[in-house]
């Protein structure tokens, strides 16, 4: 039997989950489908987590329309949804007179976009604030409203809040085809978990959004999967720099940045390598070398010896260079929210509101927009022991002894947090990691991975060797000890 909904959203990244939350303000039956075992996956998982100031985008583009409003919304949402957002500001750094002229252009562009507080400062002024910035930098564009967000928390916050307000999330659900009414309108989707029906279908499938759009007959844009590689350094680098530092943008993109993450790590990246495979998020020697070179250009003594991991994300670049946000005339009911790359994370909350308006204006005959008076806008994060006061910690430990048991020593994550993450839907070691930060520290799970696996096994009531790293075939263990040995001996005896 097909499951029936008002709206199906394909993809639970920052875009899909943001739209789900926005639509949950109405009495709509919403299904969010994602092929991953854990959220975020795809580009929302591996990116710079930058909340851009809004000076990068040419006035008149779709990007420019959403970036500044998105930035403003995040400053409000961080409290409403309990997300770590470091309102650290950003610098675009000029090394030459020519680049300095470019800063003027960005400043004018930012002013036209309505980005507040932009200012060009001297290299010396920059180094007063950022002593580790290169001495070669002669000027910088300061954007006080820029920031950096915990991207895992942001996606979790959107999707959890949408669920609180009635939306349903289906993980490990891969859309394999579209279903249409006899009149050609949208009817639903085929998935590995059966048919989901709804008159409205939102394509927020990230790097796969081009393919799904083609199924609907819209070939007006093409996704060019673009890999970005990163270094992530130990939190002991906290304060090495305090904000988000860019090079002057070139044709190739915004270039390699150096930033302090919302959690106090040092982050550098991304490269921008076009590729055919939307799923290939492997790091490469060339890419990592490029990141290191770019990082050292901005911050010559970039402490790469404190690196704890490298990673890559694949972003959904379009051949048009802009976001694709529109409701199709044919098939009716199909809405593209595609090709969202930088400043996609920044724009997400503004895009979500726009998409809700778009549906109301264009598809009111298909679904009814009755306000959900039970809508709860607030969402609380899993308690963060690391950031709690000593009194809060005592209180937590008293309320639940599991909060007096450390699981991850690098990030001071307690068993109570891990259990709460599982309660909120975590089923894999990586899902726990993204929700609690257990395993994100300098030992990269060496200490906590076996413990998290044990807690998952116990709480979910499954054997330890059924637990996966990140879903699919990523099992941590392959069986009991002595099993192979006995099997081998048996085979020998039988022979």
């Amino acid at each position, binding site marked *: 039997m097909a499951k029936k909904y008002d709206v199906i959203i394909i993809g639970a990244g920052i875009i899909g989950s943001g739209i789900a939350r926005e639509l949950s303000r109405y009495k709509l039956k919403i299904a969010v489908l994602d092929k991953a075992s854990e959220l975020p996956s795809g580009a929302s998982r591996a990116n710079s987590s930058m909340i851009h100031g809004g000076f990068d985008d040419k006035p008149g583009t779709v990007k420019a329309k959403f970036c500044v409003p998105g930035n403003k919304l995040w400053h409000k949402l961080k409290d409403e949804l309990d997300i770590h957002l470091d309102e650290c500001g950003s610098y675009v750094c000029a090394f030459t007179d020519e680049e300095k002229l470019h800063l003027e252009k960005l400043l004018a562009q930012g002013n036209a976009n309505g980005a507040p507080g932009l200012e060009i400062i001297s290299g010396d002024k920059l180094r007063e604030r950022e002593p580790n910035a290169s001495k070669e930098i002669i000027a910088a564009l300061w954007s006080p409203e820029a920031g950096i967000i915990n991207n895992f928390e942001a996606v979790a916050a959107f999707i959890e809040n949408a669920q609180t307000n009635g939306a349903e999330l289906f993980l490990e659900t891969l859309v394999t085809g579209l279903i249409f009414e006899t009149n050609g309108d949208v009817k639903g989707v085929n998935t590995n978990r059966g048919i989901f029906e709804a008159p409205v279908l939102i394509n927020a499938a990230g790097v796969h959004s081009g393919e799904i759009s083609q199924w609907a007959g819209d070939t007006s844009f093409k996704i060019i999967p673009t890999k970005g590689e990163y*270094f*992530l350094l130990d939190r*002991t680098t906290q304060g090495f720099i305090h904000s988000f530092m860019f090079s002057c943008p070139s044709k190739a993109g915004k270039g390699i940045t150096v930033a302090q993450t919302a959690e106090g790590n040092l982050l550098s990246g991304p490269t921008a390598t076009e590729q055919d495979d939307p*799923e290939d*998020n*492997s*790091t*490469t*020697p060339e*890419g*990592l070398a490029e990141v290191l070179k770019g990082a050292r250009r901005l911050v010559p003594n970039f402490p790469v010896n404190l*690196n*704890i*991991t*490298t*990673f890559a994300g694949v972003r959904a670049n379009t051949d048009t260079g802009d976001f694709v946000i529109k409701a199709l005339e044919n098939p009716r009911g199909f809405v593209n929210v595609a090709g969202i790359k930088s400043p996609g994370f920044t724009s997400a909350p503004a895009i979500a509101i726009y998409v809700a308006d778009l549906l109301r204006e264009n598809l009111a005959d298909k679904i009814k927009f009755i306000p959900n008076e039970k809508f709860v806008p607030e969402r609380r994060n899993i308690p963060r022991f690391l950031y709690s006061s*000593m009194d809060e*910690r*005592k209180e937590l*430990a*008293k309320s639940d*002894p*599991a909060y*007096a*048991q*450390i699981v991850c*020593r*690098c990030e*001071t994550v307690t068993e109570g947090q891990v259990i709460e993450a599982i309660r909120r839907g975590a089923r894999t070691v990586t899902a726990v990691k993204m929700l609690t930060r257990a395993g994100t520290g*300098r*030992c*990269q*799970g*060496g*200490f906590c*991975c*076996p413990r998290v696996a*044990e807690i998952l096994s116990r709480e979910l009531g499954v054997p*330890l*060797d059924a637990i*996966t*790293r*990140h*879903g*699919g*075939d*990523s*099992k*941590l*263990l*392959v*069986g*009991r*000890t*002595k*099993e*192979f*040995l*006995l099997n*081998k001996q048996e085979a020998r005896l039988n022979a």
Partner: protein
Amino acid sequence: MLNNNIDVLIIGAGPAGVAAGIGARKQGAEHVVVLERDWDLGGILQQCIHPGFGLRTFREELTGPEYMHRFIQQAHEAGVEFRTNTMVFQIDRNSNQVWTMNRERGIECLNPKAIVLTMGCRERPLGAIRIPGTRPAGIYTAGTAQRFVNMEGYMPGKRAVILGSGDIGLIMARRMIWEGAEVEGVYEVMSWPGGLRRNIAQCLDDYGIPFHLETTVTKIHGKDRLEGVTVAKVDANKAPIKSTERFVACDTLLLAIGLIPENELSRMAGVEIHQVTGGPVVNDLLQTSNPAIFAAGNVVIVYDLVDNVSDEGLIAGANAARYAAGEISGSIRRIPVKGGENVRLFSPQFVTGESDTTIFMRVTRPIEQACRVFTTPEFYTQRLRYARPGEMNEVKIKAAQVKAMPDLQEIIVDIQPV
């Protein structure tokens, strides 16, 4: 069970911490408490179920748990109080107050008169060496895999490649074979092994496991579960040589690429950390830059043999007890120790002349000929058949020798060919 009259508080009940407890009680400290975050005592030795421990101390080949059992019994007899499932998550640097958590006791604040840091070390993770490729399941540090196999009773994989030749990697190579898995080979980027020669012989050679020096893993393959690695020889600058790259199919990559003293708490406590050892700077009393805080074992410098760790624990515990009793005042840094040109790291870094002492060291690169380990001035000299980075060397200095030279400015330790 009072918290307000702790004389010596010891953090970590591995070999260093248990010995420190014994040392402190034998020196006369009244209330000695050892905190342990695990549910049982023994630290990493709990999972080291292979023999080879305690040859120096007991003249017997014991397993890790057997070795620890003897010390734990001594500690119980000496009246050491142990608190398991108790984690220290903060030390305030001015007050030396120690914050702990425990399921039953909740969050507590302790005010000991002296502290001994015995948190041991941790394994270097994959990120530290930045191997390109994917991030599948099946990549573990050797110690994590050892925990899965020896303590949980699960196998991490069926066909392993081991990167790095630290001792845990060598021990795990043999363990994987014993458990019926395959080990394709051990790959070491350096020109010499990271672990003890005896482990190369007993864990690799005896089982025909190939050992490749000057070779490393250059790429990781596989989306969900590890499918293989690319390995390559490296040149003199440790850069991979492209033409030597080859694919090795495996479902498990075990890392034995080094151990790092675990000093988060030491840093919180404001203890000076040595750039090279990664552990606290200590004098021969094993006192850190914070006069009330002592440190012993792998938290200070990574040892080869647990016997040395226990010996150092006894010393640190005894001196912490003396400090608690008011017999030591201030942080004593009388004579600095310096390493000669062939010494990469050494500990302690200061000598007080108050007691006989052993200075432990490692050479920068192997000396595969007769050589001499010695001090300047010549308090100690000893001929060696060879000196290798994977095998620690030591010099012994007597308090009387130091006291006889009141104008002594420094002590140099070195190893030179003869």
